[in-house]
């Protein structure tokens, strides 16, 4: 019985705080994305134009976002049934966009205006560990250029 009460408390804490954090994060992402709109990112392997010398530097950004209790519970349930784990979709979306934004921020700090060959790497910090923290890390990196496109 006590286990059930603890479970319920954890679930509601996770749900309330998780939802608030997620909404706030998405708002901030959307706002910053328009701020960094001027830095162009491409997944192509070569610079936009190859005439003349350009500055080139590696830029990257990473973020670790943890899963809230509610999401983990829902995902565990979903694991029994199979299908789309909607609880984790928004988590990964947030992490990826945040990492890209941080990469763009680094490029701006270095005075670069274009990033090519953008690569994303996703790692779950707690691969295969049952009693460990559940979190996802996304690292975005690419070559920042000062390009006169």
């Amino acid at each position, binding site marked *: 019985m006590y286990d059930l009460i603890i479970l319920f408390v954890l679930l509601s804490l996770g*749900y309330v705080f998780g*939802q608030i954090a997620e909404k706030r994060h998405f708002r901030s992402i*959307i706002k910053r*994305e*328009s701020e960094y*709109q001027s830095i*162009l*990112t*491409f997944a192509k392997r070569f610079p*936009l*134009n190859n005439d003349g010398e350009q500055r080139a530097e590696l830029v990257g950004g990473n973020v670790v976002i943890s899963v809230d209790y*509610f*999401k983990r*519970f*829902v995902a565990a*349930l*979903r694991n*029994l*049934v199979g299908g*789309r784990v*909607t*609880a984790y*979709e*928004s988590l990964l*979306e947030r992490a990826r966009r945040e990492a890209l934004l941080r990469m763009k921020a680094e490029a701006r700090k270095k005075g670069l205006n*274009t990033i090519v060959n953008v690569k994303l790497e996703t790692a779950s910090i707690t691969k295969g560990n049952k009693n460990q923290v559940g979190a996802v890390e996304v690292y975005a990196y690419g070559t920042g250029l000062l390009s006169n*496109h």
Partner: protein
Amino acid sequence: MEYQNSKIPEGINVSSEHPLKNFIYLLLGVSGAIIAVLLVLFYTIGFIAKWVPFEAEVKWAESISASFNESGDDTQNGLLDALGLPTTDKNLDGLDEQYTLRVQKITLYLQDLANKLALAQELPEPITITVHYIDQPLVNAFATLGGHVFIYQGLIDAVESENGLAMVIAHEIAHVKNRHPIVALSRGLGLGVILSLVTGVGGDSLSTSLAGHVNLLTSLAFSRGQETESDIEAYNTLLKYYGHGLGATELFSQLVKAGQETSLPEILNSHPLSQKRIERLEKLGQSTITDCSYASFNCSLTPLPEFLLND
């Protein structure tokens, strides 16, 4: 060549479904499925367990009792141990001879009564009843694996006539006849395995739950349906054996009077309420001949033999 980054609309990579709705669907779906599987399993096991040969049941009871009793030759104490009940002192040297003789005498009498009742109940061929008399004040009687029936002195004190005692014994015999102990134990075992599988802790806990199957005996409880079935069978046995149903409700009335309903040991607690059982039996009595004016033979309560009464 023109290069630009356009703004991508929101909500393509993220489902718009409300998380709580999703959660409730999942919770209901999963728990529904688990309950359905358990129900199917419950009835399938109940059906299959009835076909387990009685010899196998006896062997199972012996192995359980042996695992609790080092010497392995004392089935009575082994089973009591497995059920988590206090054992009896069988060390004959430490007890005075007269007492030992009394216990033997009572056990013989109860065994004899049980045999007669088993005959009246038409107990099928391989099934045998072994009666154990326990000299403890607990108002209790139960049947367990292998046709072992336990009768406590407390119960004998609670009934007023042999008819009342016979009703209880016949009730326990009916449990054995309908294979209730093995059905209940198999169900507990099956559900335990499934639950440990579902909770996902997997290998380790599964093996421990299998190894600890003996402990399930402690939680061995018959369903109310099984109790009612045995009540009716016992009543019919009584009619056949004595020619009338007098005294059938003796124990239950005693329990109601003593207000003992809640202080009963766990094994009796899963029984239907005594008051309900009295009413059901009385209803049954109206449809059969219990009116003594029809009886062409002795129609009265048979008294308990003198030596059964404590002090």
